[in-house]
């Protein structure tokens, strides 16, 4: 490993290509921590937003008007406001109103930190879109299939869980992929509320080391890889879930 770092260091001396975020131990440490934070943030938000989507789509089919209205209100609120504004709102407006806890330094601080708020705002944001995506899948399931399940004595949740959802997922996977890819990219906005993710760390490094060009290339490559791996996984999932003849 040392040999590689020395090689990168020599690139700087010889050609002015400053890859300090790889060969300097401190910069590498925070760069890797930043990338790990991005991955964690993306993973947690993907799981939560899909759960919100599944639950929301089910509630939309509810017989209770109030419940339907609540879901509709939620979708409108989160779909019609920019994610960056939501994040600021949660962190600076809602955050300080939350119950406070006294931290180890004797200062009373709001219960939720910047990472938690980023998770909440991003999950709800992507979740709102996911509900609509799942709804499109649910509505594509033929009425006769649902009726067949009803005649077998399934209750509403059982029908959703065992019949409608498995078929709906297959229909809406491509659209879901799109939205989740978008979600991964939107995690960079957590930068605004000081979540030390990749973009945040990169901007610290490029302002300290003035290696803007190299950092931009690194950032782009990182997200290209991260999203690439995710899309590859989702394509495999899509293929493994394929039901021959379904949807043709």
């Amino acid at each position, binding site marked *: 490993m040392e040999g590689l770092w020395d090689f990168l260091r020599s690139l700087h001396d010889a050609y002015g290509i400053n890859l300090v975020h790889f060969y300097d131990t*401190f910069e590498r440490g*925070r760069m890797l*921590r930043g990338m790990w934070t991005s991955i964690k943030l993306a993973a947690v938000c993907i799981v939560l937003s899909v759960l919100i989507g599944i639950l929301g789509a089910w509630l939309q089919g509810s017989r209770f008007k109030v419940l339907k209205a609540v879901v509709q209100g939620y979708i409108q609120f989160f779909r019609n406001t920019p994610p960056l504004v939501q994040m600021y709102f949660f962190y*600076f407006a809602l*955050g*300080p109103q939350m119950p*406070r806890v006294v*931290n180890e*330094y*004797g*200062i*009373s*601080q*709001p219960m939720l*930190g*910047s990472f938690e708020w980023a998770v909440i705002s991003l999950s709800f944001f992507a979740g709102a879109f996911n509900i609509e995506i799942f709804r499109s899948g649910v509505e594509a399931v033929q009425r006769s299939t649902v009726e067949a399940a009803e005649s077998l004595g399934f209750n509403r949740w059982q029908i959703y869980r065992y019949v409608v959802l498995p078929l709906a997922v297959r229909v809406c996977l491509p659209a879901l992929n799109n939205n989740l890819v978008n979600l991964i990219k939107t995690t960079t906005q957590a930068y*605004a509320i*000081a979540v*030390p993710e990749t973009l*945040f*760390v990169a*901007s*610290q490094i490029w*302002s*300290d080391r003035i290696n803007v060009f190299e950092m931009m290339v690194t950032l782009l490559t990182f997200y290209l890889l991260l999203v690439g791996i995710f899309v590859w996984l989702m394509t495999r999932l899509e293929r493994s879930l394929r039901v021959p003849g379904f949807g043709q």
Partner: protein
Amino acid sequence: MRRLMGVLAIGVVAALMGSTAAKADQLAEIKKKGTLIVGVKTDYPPWGMRDASGNIVGMEPDMAADVAKRLGVKLELVSVVSSNRMQFLQQGKIDLMIATMSDTPERRKVVGIVDPVYYASGVAILANKKANIKGAGDLKGKPVCALQGAFYNNELQSKYTGTDLVAFKGIPEAEQALLDGRCVGFVYDDVVLVWKKAQDKKWEAFDVVALPEWKPVPWGLAVKTEELSGPWGKFMAEATKDWLKSGTLLALEKKWVGSNTQWLIDASAAAKK
């Protein structure tokens, strides 16, 4: 070798003559036209700002007024910003620039920064009293608010906090995070923090703790490069020396900022000797 020396000597003499010939006596010119034009800031309270009726006021405008008084001429203030202040001076739009400018070797190549410098800002932390912070050594492992892109961020994290800084794009966000208890303190220019604390009651539970780990960056007032060694540059150097010696700057700082910074106390004491 001899011939080479001879050529060099002629060159030096020619250069000297050239420079004296090109040097107009700006000091005499200012006296002749009866107005001194000074470029100051209006976006950096309390060093330079506009009052309720739109007049430019602040510590640096007061210094400019003192220069005009010494010359016995009228004063005209021109609002400059960081990105145009040196150009204004070069183009002759202003005679003198007192605009919170940090003194750097690069800038000394472009404008004539007058020695001695009149002010300096260091780095300090506006710390929550409960966190009991006495210096940079107490920051280990603690969340510290900062501004993205500040020159001390790297060292602050690698040497002192050891954890990622809570860094924001603008001052208001960092202040809000500090007030909300999301960090133990906000690291920024000491003079601004001192002023903020004196200005606003909301900082009562906070202390400004100096971080002498970072040397103060001097602020220089400037004249045109070619005037620096001429009568105008010498006049301003004498005026600055006198401001330090007589305690004028200390009094102005007290008036505008609210209290005195250690750098100015030390510089004034040194000037008296």
